[in-house]
């Protein structure tokens, strides 16, 4: 009999694909075929489950069993044991790090317990390349409802009441933005989806587009209706080939079903979407630069005002929204503004997707209600610091953001609260750092990125950010002077206030933030030529191998700064804050116990 009784969902997000999840799908199909189970069991490629550190992920329905780190060799066992005999393959289950217990269902995993998935609602659940699956989960109902039962103004008002704010980092109220565009005079308007996602390490938008592209298309159509735009453009970075492929498939299917094109739902409203590829410029994530890139011009920002809602693409009123912002629109239409505004804090409603990375146990994509504290995300969801090390700082907002220290870990996440402690929400990158991360180096890393990505148009960013980077380079090489710190701060503040666009205005944030909370580290780099995290290679000091040292005191005798302590016949120790890296101890030691940096 041909009744399908099991679905094997295999994660098809870029992360898992790079770990051969596509091959897994092929092998599953082959194996099932060989044991004649291929008509009863379907193998389905789905979107990102979010638990990327444990990928490749395979989930079996209806048993609701979540397998992690599945390798190609595991396919046979899963089919033979689980599919055929109903016996769960325990060794492939996720193991909670603390109590070391195996967990079968995501509802019992700490990683998932505190998450509330709205933007990622369909990721891991549907096959993104099958529009029918999207429809099964209420797809295109919101569009139909909006077109047939609501006026454009009502749609905008729902968005306004819901309190949805731009998820790309700006946090501007979406409903208000739509209202501005709809009120701008003109017959030709546009709505653009910003899928440039340039923050290094961020992949929230990518996962949404790979796992649930229709949610964005439907929202764009709704946005077009609300603002009076018949034309939508998705500007997607060329470095996302899988997302581009899924997007194009989704657009084709949507057109086939009449959800894009002329007279949608018989309402008289026409709307269609085209896709434009980026070409490797972070600055094109800035809306005016993005618009110029779509126009075929050099991707440089231009002054605001005029804002795109007044004069954007081809000089016409244009709305630019982020992918994640769009992903929230349909649930708001279907479930209402009150439902959405009941989640989150006073000023920041709904949820936010974060890309959790760095020194945490659970690395991946998480979606939490606004107001969740950083501590909850890092420890409850993230599973704490790897190897039990000390938490040092968490960086949010990518190259535009700042660091947050242990003192502010109980800050509930929302746009204003993060800004108040010197960082920002940004697009959702969240990098956890432990004691092995050098704060000066982090600032330098982000400055390197910003100065490379600067478009070069305005003086403060073009020359100033480069100068900031040069100062940080000197500092991390041990060539910094005390006055460099003063210069850095002065320059940082002025660049923040004079730059033309958001890139330049926020590029100094990592510097200002790390200087505020970790000034001692800067001073150590400059005054003591010492990097406590051990990252700045030019500042490493000599140390003594306790396994080889016999306590002959030869090193201590020759140390010009007397920074070696130890009694005779006892293991000696070099004071890292005093060591000047002269190497005299290395030359003196006959037992190979001094480690050269």
């Amino acid at each position, binding site marked *: 009999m041909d009744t399908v009784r099991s679905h094997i969902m295999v994660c098809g997000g870029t992360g898992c694909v790079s770990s051969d999840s596509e091959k897994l799908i092929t092998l599953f199909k082959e194996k099932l075929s060989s044991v004649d189970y291929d008509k009863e069991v379907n193998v389905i490629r789905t979107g990102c489950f979010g638990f990327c550190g444990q990928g490749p992920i395979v989930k079996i329905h209806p048993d609701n069993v979540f397998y992690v780190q599945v390798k190609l060799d595991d396919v046979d066992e899963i089919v033979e044991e689980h599919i055929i005999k109903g016996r769960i393959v325990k060794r492939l289950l996720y193991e909670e790090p603390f109590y070391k217990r195996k967990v079968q269902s995501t509802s019992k995993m700490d990683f998932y317990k505190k998450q509330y998935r709205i933007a990622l609602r369909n990721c891991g659940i549907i096959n993104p390349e099958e529009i029918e699956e999207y429809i099964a989960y209420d797809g295109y109902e919101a569009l139909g409802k909006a077109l047939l039962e609501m006026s454009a103004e009502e749609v905008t008002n729902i968005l306004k009441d819901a309190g949805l704010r731009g998820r790309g980092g700006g946090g501007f109220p979406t409903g208000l933005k739509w209202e501005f565009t709809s009120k701008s005079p003109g017959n030709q308007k546009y709505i653009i989806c910003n899928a440039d996602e340039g923050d290094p390490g961020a992949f929230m938008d990518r996962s949404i587009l790979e796992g649930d592209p229709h949610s964005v298309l439907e929202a764009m159509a709704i946005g077009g209706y609300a603002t009076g735009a018949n034309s939508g453009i998705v500007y997607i970075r060329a470095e996302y080939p899988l997302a581009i492929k899924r997007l194009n498939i989704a657009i084709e299917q949507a057109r086939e079903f009449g959800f894009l094109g002329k007279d949608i739902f018989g309402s008289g409203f026409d709307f269609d979407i085209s896709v434009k590829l980026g070409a490797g*410029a972070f600055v094109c994530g800035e809306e005016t630069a993005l618009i110029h890139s779509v126009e075929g011009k050099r991707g440089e920002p231009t002054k605001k005002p005029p804002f795109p809602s007044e004069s954007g693409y081809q000089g016409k009123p244009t709305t630019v929204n982020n992918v994640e912002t769009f992903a929230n629109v349909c649930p708001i239409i279907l479930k209402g503004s009150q439902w959405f505004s009941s989640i989150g804090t006073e000023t920041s409603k709904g949820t936010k997707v974060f890309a959790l990375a760095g020194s945490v146990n659970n690395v991946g994509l998480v979606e939490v209600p606004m107001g969740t504290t950083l501590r909850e995300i890092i420890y409850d969801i993230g599973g704490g610091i790897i190897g039990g090390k000390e938490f040092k700082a968490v960086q949010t907002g990518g190259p535009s953001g700042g660091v947050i220290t242990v003192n502010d870990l109980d800050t509930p996440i929302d746009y204003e609260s993060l800004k108040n402690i010197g960082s920002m929400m940004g697009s959702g990158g969240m990098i956890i750092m432990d004691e092995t991360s050098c704060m000066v180096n982090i600032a330098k890393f982000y400055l390197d990125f910003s100065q*490379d990505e600067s478009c*070069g*148009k305005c003086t*403060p960013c073009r*020359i100033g950010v480069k100068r900031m980077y040069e100062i940080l380079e000197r500092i991390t090489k041990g060539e910094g002077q005390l006055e460099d710190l003063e*210069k850095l701060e002065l*320059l940082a503040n002025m660049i923040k*206030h004079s730059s033309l666009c958001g890139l330049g205005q926020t590029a100094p944030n990592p510097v200002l933030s790390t200087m505020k909370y970790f000034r001692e580290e800067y001073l150590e780099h400059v005054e003591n030529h010492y990097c406590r995290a051990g990252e700045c290679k030019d500042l490493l000091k000599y140390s003594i191998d306790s396994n080889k040292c016999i306590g002959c005191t030869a090193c201590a005798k020759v140390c010009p700064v007397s920074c070696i302590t130890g009694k005779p016949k006892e293991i000696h120790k070099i004071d890292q804050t005093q060591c000047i890296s002269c190497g005299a101890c290395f030359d003196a030691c006959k037992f190979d116990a001094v480690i050269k940096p």
Partner: protein
Amino acid sequence: MGTVNIVFNDTKLEVEEGITILEAAKKIGVHIPTLCHLDLEGFGIVNQVASCRVCVVEVEGRETLVPSCAEKVYDGMVIHSDSIKAMSGRRMAVELLLSNHPKDCLSCAKNLECELQSLAQELGIRDIYWEGERVDYKKDTSTFSLIKDPNKCVMCRRCETMCNEVQTCNVLSAVNRGFESFVGPAFNMDMADSACTFCGQCVAVCPTAALTEMDNTGQVWNQLVNPKKHVVVQIAPAVRVAIGEMFGLEPGTLTTGKIVTALRKLGFDGVFDTNFGADLTIIEEATELIHRINHNGTLPMLTSCCPAWVKFFEHQFPDLLDIPSTCKSPQIMFGTIAKTYYAEKQNIDPENISVVSIMPCLAKKAEAKRPELTKDEESNVDIVITTREFGRMMKSAGIDFANLPDGEFDKIMGESTGASVIFGTTGGVIEAAVRTAYEWLTDEELEDVNFKQLRGLDGIREASVFIGETELRIGIAHGLGNARKLLDEIKAGKSKFHAIEIMACPGGCIGGGGQPYHHGDMEVIRKRQEALYVDDENKIHRKSHENKEIIQLYKEFIGEPYGEKAHELLHTHYVARQKI
């Protein structure tokens, strides 16, 4: 437009709605330094990219500083241009620019004329805190007309605006990204390989020495000190109403006589007037126009004395090469006649004659080097220097220009009519042509030679001249963008004109790329134009064909206008070129 109430540096003001903060500042005499901003009023040329961040001011309620050149005022705006935050921002922008700028002011072509230098001086910069890497690019000296030095580029984008939006040549744009960016042709190709017309408008607006003219004064000195060479010089009409500005005289001061005296002091053997060449051009061109009208020739006919314009249509409209007049330009015609007729008359071996032109123009340098503008492998014109170079030559010779007595041009090629004088302004060439064409077509005497309908400063002008019963429809454009519009019409077969005059520079030659810098003040152009029309008024002969020396030239040497010898000596052909 309504008005709005603002507070500017604690002063309450009521100003028009929609003006910029910079414009509002001018109303209360507040000076805000600018760099990238450029507004050539009346010519519609505006560069408002707000990229230098020098003109920033503080606006209450706004976290970031605001560019005053681009930001419009609104009701209730409270502005501080003199707060510490605003001044620090301004200063930092200049200091950062200086930290990435060569320090060779003393030997720089823009020494004392450089806007960055002036800013540094105005803000009292003494120390550059932000020392670091500097860009290091090669200078582009591939052309005959200009020099491009990317190391001195401050990314003001004025040249880009000029080249792309005004001239529509689209040669210049930003290259590279971030710290390494500068403005140049695509792929950073040599300017000589691009579609550059050498109009020099980029040079005219560049605030630093990123774009300057090729300096040929050294070659001129070499000719002057060479005992074997008989050096003749011709001076363009637009030069005489502008050169005085370099010596403290008002723009538009007519200094023809002083120029002649100065040139003799410098040691030129023959001092002549390009206007002679201009009258000659009119004879040939008017004949050509009449010929085309009477023999169903290609119409409209376009003037061809502007070499930047010639290069423009060679690149941009290579399939319309039969439309422009085949006449050489006045300077070239002069050069040709100097090395033939004049040489014969004075019994000088043409090989020993050096023809030097003093022009308001950079394209003329390239024109002189065109391979088809030669005779017996010698260029018709040997060296071209600009008004600015001429001024520098006089200064280095210690000539007290302003107080020189007037001199007279030499004979044989020194006479000119009022028609030739107005060549220097937009509308002048065609007016001169019409004065002659009128008399030749109607066989009547033209009583009022002033064709005021052809005058003005609008970018595109249309006028009708009634010659007897016939209506001659004339089109006039200055600025290559405006020229393109007329050319597009011709291409589409929709042109209704008989003759079109095109000048590449704003206002015509008076606004040329080699003239003394106007620094954004368009009054200068207007005054220069006015002076030319006054000079024309004061001439006894105001029609080219009344020039006695020209009449003699034809009688003794050329023969028929537009005849065989005329074609051999005074006409040329054009070359189809690619866009890039």
